[in-house]
């Protein structure tokens, strides 16, 4: 089959690899119809996450049709159309039973690597380095899906791939980011990062009852999309974020802050340069600018929700601000399996149509170009969907003309 493989820093290429096979009795083989490039794939692409190996297939946001089942999977049939959650979870360990699926104790055979880095291991993840298991990813024609009786969710035929694909990661991730804020009616939520996950946090915060959402970014088309979703916006290149937020909230600060940025934050020149230098020298692995700012801006006693991905260690962490002002930090890789059914229901009810975030559609064969466009935000790229059966004559960039950017 064809699959998008990683061969080194910013080097990906679509290659011929063997077809996947059933290895465990609870596996399914899924023929992929749609798969997306995630912001966290860029951390792998840029090689900020260790334990990648040349030839790793990337991709953890995918859906398709079940073509083969292990004999222990009884809740699915060959031919079912399913969306696959990115964390791999057994459904039987302590954490799965507590609904904390991204912490499954049994799905990461390379747990020892994660234990060295993190102290304990999180769950395995598709196509996401060897320290989360070394599973082949979903930017391919087929994928082996372990624990198919727990993860994949059947989707109704009247919903298109693009409406349900993001149940695999970014919609539940953005939603959990907002849910961790314990939103009460009348709350003001500030959100750092207007990438795809940030966009879903904005809409989820409103769905959960927030009255005001303030979104922070610097990319005009992303700020525009945030405003389309009902948020007020701050362009950090034009305004001092702290001052702007304090002015907007009468000096108190937002009730909760969501970090939808993670380890490769950009920010005002001097601080960005400081973190970028330390990161390049290996003195810190992550650039936590957004998280530092979120902590400093949050109101006393508020919640800082960290859903953006971090990989290792950070520097100049404002612990004093956190402690003295009774802040609460909540975090985690999304427990996607917990959210898939209720969020699918919201899509069916018409509360939200997740396809709004897609700007580019292209063939799986064009994955390397998709990575380059997404990383460098070329052609106003916000979200790329790859389709193995995409007709490559469908426009040069697969640009979705229905979405117009207002500058």
């Amino acid at each position, binding site marked *: 089959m064809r699959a998008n493989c990683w061969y080194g820093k910013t080097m990906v290429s679509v290659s011929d690899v*063997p077809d996947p096979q059933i290895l465990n*009795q609870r596996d399914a083989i899924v023929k992929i119809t749609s798969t997306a490039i995630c912001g966290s794939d860029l951390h792998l692409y840029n090689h900020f996450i260790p334990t990648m190996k040349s*030839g790793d*297939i990337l991709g953890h946001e995918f859906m398709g049709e079940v073509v083969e089942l292990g004999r222990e999977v009884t809740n699915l049939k060959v031919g079912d159309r399913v969306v696959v959650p990115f964390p791999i979870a057994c459904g039987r360990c302590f954490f799965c039973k507590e609904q904390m699926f991204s912490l499954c104790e*049994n799905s990461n*055979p390379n747990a020892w690597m994660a234990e060295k880095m993190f102290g304990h291991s999180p769950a395995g993840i598709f196509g996401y380095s*060897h320290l989360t298991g070394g599973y*082949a990813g979903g930017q391919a024609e087929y994928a082996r899906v372990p624990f198919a009786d727990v993860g994949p969710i059947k989707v109704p035929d009247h919903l298109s791939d693009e409406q349900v694909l993001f149940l695999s990661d970014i919609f539940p991730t953005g939603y959990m980011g907002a849910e961790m804020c314990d939103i009460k009616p009348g709350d003001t939520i500030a959100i750092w990062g207007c990438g795809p996950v940030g966009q879903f946090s904005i809409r989820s915060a409103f769905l959960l009852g927030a009255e005001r959402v303030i979104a922070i970014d610097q990319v005009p088309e992303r700020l525009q999309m945030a405003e389309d979703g009902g948020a007020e916006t701050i362009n950090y290149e034009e305004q001092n974020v702290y001052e702007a937020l304090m002015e907007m909230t009468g000096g108190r600060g937002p009730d909760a802050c969501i970090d939808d940025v993670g380890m490769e934050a950009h920010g005002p020149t001097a601080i960005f340069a400081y973190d970028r230098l330390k990161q390049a020298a290996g003195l810190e692995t992550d650039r936590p600018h957004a998280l530092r700012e979120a902590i400093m801006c949050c109101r006393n006693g508020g919640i800082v929700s960290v859903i953006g991905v971090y990989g290792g260690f950070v520097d100049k962490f404002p612990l004093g601000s956190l402690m003295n002002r009774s802040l609460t930090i909540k975090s985690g890789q999304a427990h996607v399996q917990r959210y898939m059914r209720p969020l699918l229901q919201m899509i069916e009810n018409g509360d939200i149509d997740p396809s709004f975030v897609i700007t580019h559609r292209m063939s799986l064969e064009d994955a390397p170009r998709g990575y380059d466009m997404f990383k460098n935000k070329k052609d106003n790229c916000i979200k790329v969907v790859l389709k193995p059966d995409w007709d490559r004559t469908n426009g040069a960039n697969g640009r979705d003309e229905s979405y117009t950017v207002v500058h």
Partner: protein
Amino acid sequence: MSTNQQTGTFDLGEASSVSELELQAPQSRGANYSVERARPGLPSSSAKRLAKGLGWFSIGLGLAELLAPRAIANISGVSNKHTGLIRLYGLREIGAGITIFAQEKPTEGVWSRVVGDAIDLASLGVAATNPNAKLGRVAFATANVLAVTALDVVCAMQLSSSTNRGIQAKGSCFINLPPEEVYSFWRNFENLPRFMRHLESVRDLGDGRSHWKAKGPAGTEVEWHATIIADVPNEVITWRSLEGSDVDNAGAVRFERAAGNRGTILKVNLEYNPVGGVLGAAVAKLFGEEPEQQLDDDLRRFKQVLEVGEVVVSDATLLGTGYTAQRPGQPASAKELESAEMLPSETATNYGSEGRYTER
């Protein structure tokens, strides 16, 4: 020995080698039985801790002798004309300290301290004959050196006596099932090759005896007979190999009911004399065969077999989980699958819907 309520003591710590265990026949002690004592092999750790303390003492005293020889002479009541000599002794102390910290097992370092103690005592003896010596202070210093000498000798002897101890590994894991189920799965030794990557087969010969076959280093195969020493249902099993084994080994596995009835905390201690001795073990380590790492991996697979029903594999770990064994995260070809060490299908138990294992 049967699986009935039989109790016994098992403490590798009292035997200087695995083979001596033969002499410690199980005794029925009833209520005296202590699960804690079922932990094999520990003595060298306390000696090592003592050695570390002595190492710090060496460095501290050495620095004092090197930097403030007059004060040292004054305290010991010896003439302060010998500051050069005291400085030299200081260097010797620091050297001994560094040797102790540089060695994984500081047997030589601590013995070198014993030699140094003898020199110190001799020097104090000579100093006492000097008419200028303050005898009271010299006697006080001598008493102190004697006390430290005693510690040094004890520590050095402990380290020496345990020189031939085998490789030890311990590990633990948390399993989402009651101790009764975890125990009964383990107690059927024929189940063990399902999750222990290096075991080829285990045959139960009855009467507590079993025959084991495992992969040795470099494609070799090793075999041994083992016997159960203690077997307390749902609590502990200990075993050791019999005379004439390719690999002398012993082990203990304990099953503790976790707080809040959340399952079982499993604790395993293993000890073995590796094939090819210490050199063989060092070579094995080079190839990523770290004993504790191996045990951890085996326990993770044990948990998977019990909780999930089979060993969980990813594309990268089909040939093993070590750094060198990792494949890229992409599907294996049919040929690669054939060479996989352990396929999940060989490990599977058939799971019922209620999440309990059943025999295949």
